[in-house]
């Protein structure tokens, strides 16, 4: 920190300029402004950290009534009865896991294929651009529109399927919402996988090709093993996306409070329960339980997010 007062009181005598005290003051102000500017930039950064921490604290503090009332029963209780203040979230935990995992299973082959298609077979050119744009378009469709479309198109189809299989023809349920979820997370999975595939050093591939390997062999034996950890992270991040998805799932999952017996049963996810019941929740415990579910969602998706990104960072570095 330069001694500004000293700078002010020094007299500069040069051939070219004689600086009078007015300009001295101006220069003093400039340096002051500099410090203010730099500090406020840092302040903005701190505000962002504070926002995030506040989100976590708010969720935790408002979940306390629920934690006090239910304790661990929250996680394994099966009954959801707001009237008697009984709240077991197990059906929703199962619903969340079922839909997300099913969505992952359905979308992974398609996402991986599209990523390989765009990464290896058609990296440039018209075909590439068309498909890239289609995938990006898919990514920009809002969740609520997916849900609406699902209601009008998917549900009757699933209903017919259920009739043929002699299952109760709800139409809505775990299967329907998993299908829509898989469509929704696919673009994200594709873009992540594409990034990961593009990181395979060309030298590695060229070495294999020059030995006479077919494209299939190079993909299977060189590329896939190389990107294994990156792919795992991509799947993890897509899972994180699926866990937090709300609107489309809410509209297609059937809103049932019981543990789904099969994929054709209706159910609920943590997100859809919150969406359905938050504004109706009377009594502070009821609301607190819903918030606790929000806390759980927040913690799990954040952990998955951080873990996934760490794996990708490490993958990039190696």
């Amino acid at each position, binding site marked *: 920190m330069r001694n500004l007062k000293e700078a002010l009181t020094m007299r500069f005598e040069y051939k070219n300029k004689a600086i009078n005290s007015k300009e001295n003051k101006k220069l003093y102000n400039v340096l002051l402004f500099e410090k203010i500017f730099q500090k406020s930039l840092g302040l903005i950064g701190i505000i962002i*950290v504070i926002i995030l921490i506040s989100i976590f604290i708010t969720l935790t503090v408002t979940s306390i009534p629920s934690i006090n009332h239910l304790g661990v029963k929250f996680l394994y209780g099966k009954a959801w009865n707001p009237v008697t203040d009984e709240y077991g979230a197990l059906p929703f935990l199962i619903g969340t896991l079922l839909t997300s995992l099913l969505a992952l299973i359905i979308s992974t082959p398609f996402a991986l294929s599209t990523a390989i298609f765009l990464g290896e077979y058609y990296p440039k050119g018209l075909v590439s651009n068309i498909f890239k744009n289609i995938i990006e378009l898919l990514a920009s469709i809002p969740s609520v529109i997916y849900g609406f479309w699902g209601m009008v198109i998917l549900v009757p189809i699933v209903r017919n399927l259920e009739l043929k299989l002699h299952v109760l023809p709800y139409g809505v349920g775990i299967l329907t919402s998993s299908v829509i979820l898989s469509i929704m997370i696919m673009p994200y999975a594709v873009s992540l996988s594409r990034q990961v595939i593009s990181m395979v050093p060309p030298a590695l591939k060229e070495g294999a090709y020059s030995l006479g390997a077919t*494209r299939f062999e190079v993909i299977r034996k060189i590329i896939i093993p190389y990107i294994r950890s990156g792919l795992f992270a991509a799947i993890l991040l897509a899972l994180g996306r699926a866990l937090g998805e709300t609107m489309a799932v809410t509209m297609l999952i059937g809103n049932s409070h019981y543990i789904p017996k099969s994929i054709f049963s209706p159910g609920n996810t943590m997100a859809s329960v919150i969406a359905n019941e938050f504004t109706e929740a009377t009594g502070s415990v009821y609301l607190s339980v819903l918030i606790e579910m929000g806390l759980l969602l927040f913690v799990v998706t954040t952990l998955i997010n951080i873990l996934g990104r760490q794996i990708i960072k490490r993958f990039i570095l190696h």
Partner: protein
Amino acid sequence: MDKLLKLRFYKDKLFKSGIILLTLLSTVPLLLILFYIVKQGITAINWDFFINLPKPVGEKGGGILNALIGSGIIIFIASLIAIPFGAIAGLYLSEYSRDKLAYWVGLCVDVLQGIPSIVLGIIIYLWIVKPTGRFSALSGSIALAIMMLPPIIKSTEETLKLIPGTIKEASLSLGVPYYKTILRIILPMGLSGIISGSILSISRVAGETAPLLFTAFGNPFITTNILKPMSSLPLLIFNYASSPYDEWHKLAWGASFVLIMLILFLNIVTKILERRWKIQF
């Protein structure tokens, strides 16, 4: 040809066909969805659609004016909050990228991006709706603003990082103070990145419903008072799609069509802008 070689070629061809097939199948949902939206939406749209309010159940016609105005206002307020804040945060991250604090800020931005939007709705409900005792468009805007921050911050940071350091040094060596160098040289050079990031984030939140469920809440009438509950396109679609009335379904299709067109338009603008600033350096 060697029998083994033949088998390998066969596998290769099979694999390629499989990949192409699966990729084509992946595009089917998009085409189905778009086709359906356009087909249903276009029939629902007429001049009345844009300038009327939704009619009560049973009456024909009606429009989505309340949702159009509502979406406009909510997004506008959200942008007013998010764009300056996000641009400055992006500036901070690009200038102080070696600071320890910057690492944590970057991490927080990543985490913010991954928070489920319904959780953000809960948070803003607890922070604003509950204490003030009422739903409001403003609370909805704040929720959307938090969602808009990460794309704007990232885009700003990326653009500013592309600016060669020697430009900054040229300005400093002329005796220009640091803050003026940033405000009058660096920031204007990064402007197109900031703008494209902003438009991208708008296109992302235009279709968001979950954060508005417990904040802006929705409103069957037109209001411009941001302290009152307000409608928005996605909220309207959600409510009307979930209803059992055909007339309302029709409105929802029309609204979906308008929303998709809007998002498409914003995406295209973003692309054009991105190409401009990515080429500049």
